[in-house]
């Protein structure tokens, strides 16, 4: 006789959380915290902010757990909606500040960009690709960025993304289409300076 271990659903965990079971809260946290943290990280590019947002999301869940209505959407969409609210508030707060770039970091980034064409494999490494994509995503406007992050990086369906963002499914589709087009443009634009730099470098060598 085989006993199948069943994973409790989000609704079941919620009921147990309301009853005061800490284990249920921990289980739900471990199930959902990674996605929330990564969403905030992809939206802000800051681990500190991502940590704060994650904490705020689960504190809000703890505080207003009875406000969640499963008939209106999934728990994941609900949590992402809370995270989005905190992220946008954080972005609005930090909009007035200009990040101070470290000279070493700038130099390293330039070296990486210049080193790529000199790669004997002639292709981007996986790490470079990921880095460039992340930079391009972070450069998107917020309302395009959140759709790209949810639908592409978190593989969320259009419906859940629409629930989390509080908009129509068609809006999600159109924003995703436009956001992807902007990403392609930015990645292509990022590729162009590398080609130019390679040319300049080659010229210097000849000089």
């Amino acid at each position, binding site marked *: 006789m085989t006993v199948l271990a069943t994973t409790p659903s989000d609704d079941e965990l919620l009921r147990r959380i309301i009853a*005061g079971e800490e284990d249920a809260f921990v289980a739900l946290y471990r199930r959902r915290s990674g996605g929330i943290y990564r969403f905030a990280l992809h939206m802000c590019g800051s681990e500190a902010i991502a940590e704060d947002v994650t904490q705020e999301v689960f504190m809000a869940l703890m505080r207003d757990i009875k406000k969640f209505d499963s008939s209106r959407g999934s728990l994941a969409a609900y949590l992402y909606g809370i995270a989005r609210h905190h992220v946008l508030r954080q972005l609005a707060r930090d909009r007035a500040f200009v990040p101070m770039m470290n000279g070493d970091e700038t130099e390293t980034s330039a070296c990486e960009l210049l080193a790529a064409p000199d790669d004997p494999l002639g292709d981007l490494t996986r790490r470079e690709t990921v880095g460039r994509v992340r930079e391009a995503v972070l450069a998107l406007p917020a309302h395009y960025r959140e759709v790209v992050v949810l639908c592409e990086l978190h593989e969320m369906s259009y419906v859940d993304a629409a629930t989390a963002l509080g908009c129509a499914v068609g809006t999600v589709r159109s924003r995703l289409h436009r956001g992807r087009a902007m990403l392609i443009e930015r990645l292509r634009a990022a590729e162009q300076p590398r080609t130019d730099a390679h040319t300049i470098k080659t010229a210097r060598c000849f000089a």
Partner: protein
Amino acid sequence: MNCQEFENVVTDLARVSMMDAAAREDGLGHAAGCARCAARLADEQTLTDGLCAAAAVSADTDYAPAHLEATLRAAFGARVEVLSPVAHAFAPRGSRSMVVGAVAAVFAALVTLVGWNVLRSSQAPPLKPVAQTPLANGSVPPKNAIENREAVSLKDVVGKNSVGHEDGVNENDVDALQELSSARSNLKAIATGRHQRFARAGLASGSPRGESVEEPSAAPRFVSTSADEDSIATEFMPLTQGGELSNADGGQIVRVEMPRSALVSFGLPMNMERARERVKADVVLGHDGVARAIRFVH
């Protein structure tokens, strides 16, 4: 399918998401025959690959720090501890309606108490303005409190002394309470008869406070004295030059008899047929022997 229609489905083609099979075939067919759309599709597929790689790397490396879980667990435990006593306190009593009923009962009791106080204060006769005789130690005798002791309530005294806060309580309330306490002391002294002489003027123990001196009424009225419940007396009428009762440094009250015709000089009615009779009066004498005020006793 033309290029415009291809643009509408290129994202779904690149993401390999669920879409209509016929639309997929048409889109791929169009890309095979259109170099521009084929390049567009290739860019989209490259982007999809990059995004998938970024998602995979992020899923492997980006996690919420471990201390965050500990913090939230502690917060959850604290929240449960806070909420539990409340739940346990109401749980044995059964239904929620009992709690609501208890709260309603307390509220009804409070409303009844407040309403009874308001009704009681509204039924109490207003405090009549009466003249107050200067005391020997410079304080105002609580004569009104003595003569209308049934009418004097805490609210009356407080309301009288509170400026702009009839129902409120401010620093004057303390004074009012002290004044009321003084009045009660006077009543006690009168009852024992130890200070009968001063008690008639409300000077028995002397109020420690009472800075204000009210003007005597223009038409003196008779009120019953406390010392002798059968006799009635007018209010004290000032005899000083200014016509006001000033806070004398001291003095005493002397019961005298004088011709009834003296009532006329104070504006009191007099029966001419009884002009020869004598009337009793209390005269307040200062230390200098000068009469300060007078009241007639019948």
